[in-house]
């Protein structure tokens, strides 16, 4: 599979909007949308957990070309904490309960829009990386925090 592309991010944005699905780009893919220069492999979406939003997410994912069985669709509608999709045109992680962020509505209120892409604030992205305690996330923290400082100075 090829690397995730800008065009595919646009497709996510447009198709999720069409299905009125509420989500935010999170993780390093979110930071990259905010201007952080680094590398990553796939996109991470923080999806609001509700039955209605889950159904909208499933409809959007199917329209994008993800081959979801009914059981898999049900798990997304149910809003399992973490869903990893590698059965579509690109890899995608759906996160319904990211570490370090209490409620979707809080993150939504702090979101940043970049060319129509809804993105978690850098504070939320950093908070989730700190709370994950993962080696790879903690290693990226000093540079992410420096980027946050850079943005503050240039706001």
């Amino acid at each position, binding site marked *: 599979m090829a690397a995730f592309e800008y065009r595919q991010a646009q497709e996510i944005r447009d198709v999720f909007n069409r299905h009125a699905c509420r989500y935010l780009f999170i993780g390093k893919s979110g930071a990259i949308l905010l201007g952080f220069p680094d590398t990553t492999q*796939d996109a991470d979406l923080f999806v609001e957990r509700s039955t209605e939003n889950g159904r909208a997410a499933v409809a959007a994912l199917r329209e994008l070309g993800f081959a979801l069985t009914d059981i898999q669709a049900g798990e997304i509608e149910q809003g399992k*904490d973490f869903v*990893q999709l*590698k059965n579509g045109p690109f890899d995608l992680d759906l996160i319904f309960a990211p570490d370090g962020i209490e409620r979707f509505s809080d993150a939504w209120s702090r979101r940043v829009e970049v060319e129509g892409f809804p993105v978690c604030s850098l504070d939320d992205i950093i908070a989730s990386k700190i709370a994950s305690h993962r080696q790879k996330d903690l290693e990226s923290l000093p*540079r992410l925090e420096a980027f946050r*400082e850079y943005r503050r100075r240039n706001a």
Partner: protein
Amino acid sequence: MKIPQEWLEEFEAAARRPLEQRMRYAFIRTYKPVLDDAPFRSFNTMEEYRQWCEANLPDWLGYGRI
């Protein structure tokens, strides 16, 4: 907070690039053993996911907790 000069130059260079170009530079594709070997996985809780990563993924991928 002091931003290392090298990082500052990278941030400034990135800020001059359009988003499409930034994304082209940022997204790469490499095979991740085990992680990439199933078309779909789901976990009831993040803790369950973290434990699965620690039990199944090679340490060098960096998914383990410190």
